């Protein structure tokens, strides 16, 4: 069980404004290789994901960016034929350590998926589920407050405050995705992984989600996989370009988009393939 006050303290510290240039690495990946059966999906990927910033993973379909994202909360464990090797550490802790509890890891590393996937339960239950199974609150009142806080942070409270007990699946696509973000932050994670969170949303809903990410950035380390280069350019501080399972280029977003070092990166961002 995670100590609540500890997390609060951490968030206050994390809330201090940090300059992009001296972002400290939080998630460090070294020589990550992933195989699906006989097929290799990732080749020796090295990435340092900075704390309290948005890192974007871009690249053509099938380049391995989602695969790498799913290594960070060990979602790939659910695929029987998937084998991950290499080191990934979060704050120095090896997440593939056999002694590490994967359930706790997933509570610390939240995830938002491509298609909004609220549970077919009420809005309240969607958010309360995570804290409840991890025992993060001691009373009904605390849980109610937490649900409200998460909805507020996700910018959804005003829209749904009078129908908390109606099904989450009755919301619009954009609202559902923000509900999923609220659900992800309810377990008080340090990292939020987003796998193409806006690909099923219209431009207005996309703008709202991006705005939300901007706000959450000060408290959470976020990684977003996206097919939209404009989105990566708009919201991220770091960008990683993947191609054919290899990390081609990784650096400050501005540099990647204005002065790419690799020919493949340049071709991709200028729309010559992908």
């Amino acid at each position, binding site marked *: 069980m995670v100590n609540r006050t500890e997390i609060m303290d951490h968030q206050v510290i994390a809330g201090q404004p940090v300059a992009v240039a001296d972002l400290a690495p939080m998630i460090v990946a070294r020589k990550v290789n992933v195989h699906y059966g006989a097929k290799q999906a990732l080749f020796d990927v090295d990435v340092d994901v900075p704390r309290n910033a948005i890192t974007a993973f871009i690249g053509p379909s099938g380049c391995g960016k989602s695969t790498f994202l799913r290594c960070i*909360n060990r*979602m790939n464990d*659910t695929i*029987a034929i998937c084998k991950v090797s290499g080191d990934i550490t979060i704050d120095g802790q090896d997440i593939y350590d056999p002694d590490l509890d994967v*359930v*706790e*890891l*997933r*509570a610390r590393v*939240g*995830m*938002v*998926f491509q*298609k909004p*996937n*609220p*549970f*077919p339960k009420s809005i309240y239950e969607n958010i309360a*589920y*995570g804290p409840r*199974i*991890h025992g993060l609150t001691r009373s009904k009142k605390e849980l109610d407050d937490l649900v409200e806080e998460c909805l507020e942070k996700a910018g959804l409270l005003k829209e749904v405050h009078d129908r908390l007990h109606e099904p989450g*699946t009755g919301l619009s696509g954009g609202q559902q995705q923000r509900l*999923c973000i609220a*659900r*992800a932050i*309810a*377990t008080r994670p340090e990292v939020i992984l987003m796998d193409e969170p806006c690909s099923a949303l219209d431009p207005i809903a996309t703008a709202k989600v991006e705005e939300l990410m901007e706000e959450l950035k000060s408290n959470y380390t976020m990684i977003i996989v996206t097919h939209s280069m404009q989105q990566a350019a708009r919201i991220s501080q770091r960008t990683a370009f993947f191609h054919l399972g290899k990390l081609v280029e990784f650096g400050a977003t501005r540099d990647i988009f204005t002065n790419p070092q690799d020919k493949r990166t340049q071709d991709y961002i200028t729309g010559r393939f992908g």
Partner: protein
Amino acid sequence: MTVNATATPAAAPPLPRLNDPARLRVRYVAEARFRIYGVVALAIALSFLVGLFASIISNGWSAFLQSNYELPVYLDPAEIDPDGKRDTSRFNLADYTAMARNAMAKSLGLPDKLDRATKRDLKGLLSRAVDVQIRDTVVADPDLIGKTVKIDLLAHGNVDSLLKGAIDRSIPEARRQLNDRQLQWIDKLVADGVLHKRFNTGLFTYGASSQPESSGLAVALIGSLFMMATVMVLAVPIGVAAAAYLEEFAPKNFLTDLIEVNINNLAAVPSIVFGLLGLAVFINFAGLPRSASLVGGLVLALMTLPTVIIATRAAIRAVPPSIREAALGVGASKMQTLFHHVLPLAFPGIMTGTIIGLVQALGETAPLLMIGMVAFVVDIPGSVMEPATALPVQIYMWATSAERGFVERTAGATIVLLAFLFVMNAAAVYLRRKFERTW
């Protein structure tokens, strides 16, 4: 087309037009023909179904009515309790049929002293079960001895058939089940309001009997109930657990592939084979009693298990993976994901599959024949270890009896069985509708 026309000489035929009326007509006709085939197929299937139901119901509805005499019977103390000790075991020795016969003679206005032929003819109007009916009345309340009590007495199967129009009065007396004098008496009794048809509660309260009028489905109903309970208790939890393990936890390897193939094969094994297995394992090896509904339930549970497993696996597989990812993503363990999200969403499918499995088991006859549940069981079983029969087996047994009354009861029992199947199927549909969720 113009380019084409200039490139090749005028001899080349023009390309077919997209909206060529001839082709269009051919397509429309083909579509209309296909629709007609469909409607005809449906109509044939429906007409079979309607024919089946019409035949069963027209044959069987009269089984729910039974002819009874309402006769004032003098409970003669000299015959029932000559010592005046009110000894219940002594009650069994009395000739109650004679009392019923005398009551009927009195009601018909016949003289007190009857000749043998008259006695025989009167007896032919009464069911052999009246003996038991009067005795039960006396045993229930011995204070009635010495009084004249109005008792409902079962009419003989032939009388019942006559009243239901199944015996033709016009055929010659020698070949008729009832003679002319008996017909006269019956008409008089009907006119006096002594003999009349009532709802046949006996169909649901009597056990096996050699007379149609006193045989009922009680043993079969209780036996079927016990067996369904056994199947529910065994097949549902085992089936759901096996399916959940195979679907969510088991590694995909040669062994699980083999298990999967075998489960699918088991579902297709003829039911008589399960009966043989039950005979060999449960009765010969484990030493369970023959004809017991426990053994029947075990055999049917084995038979239903593959159906439940297959239905549950299908229902679990139909739960979208995004729900599992969502649950795993907030840090639910595999088991929490299964119990909090996957199984509740799969519940309607599991219920439907289970009920369909139960319906199959309820209508199953062959394996029960193997384990001796085709038996003449008079006493209603009080536990799963006592001999019993099952609804479809009872239908089978009645269908092999020649009397007109049994023919009617065969159809009547079929209606009861179909009613159960209908109710269970309706329950499956209702549960599916009620618990089905959209996501």
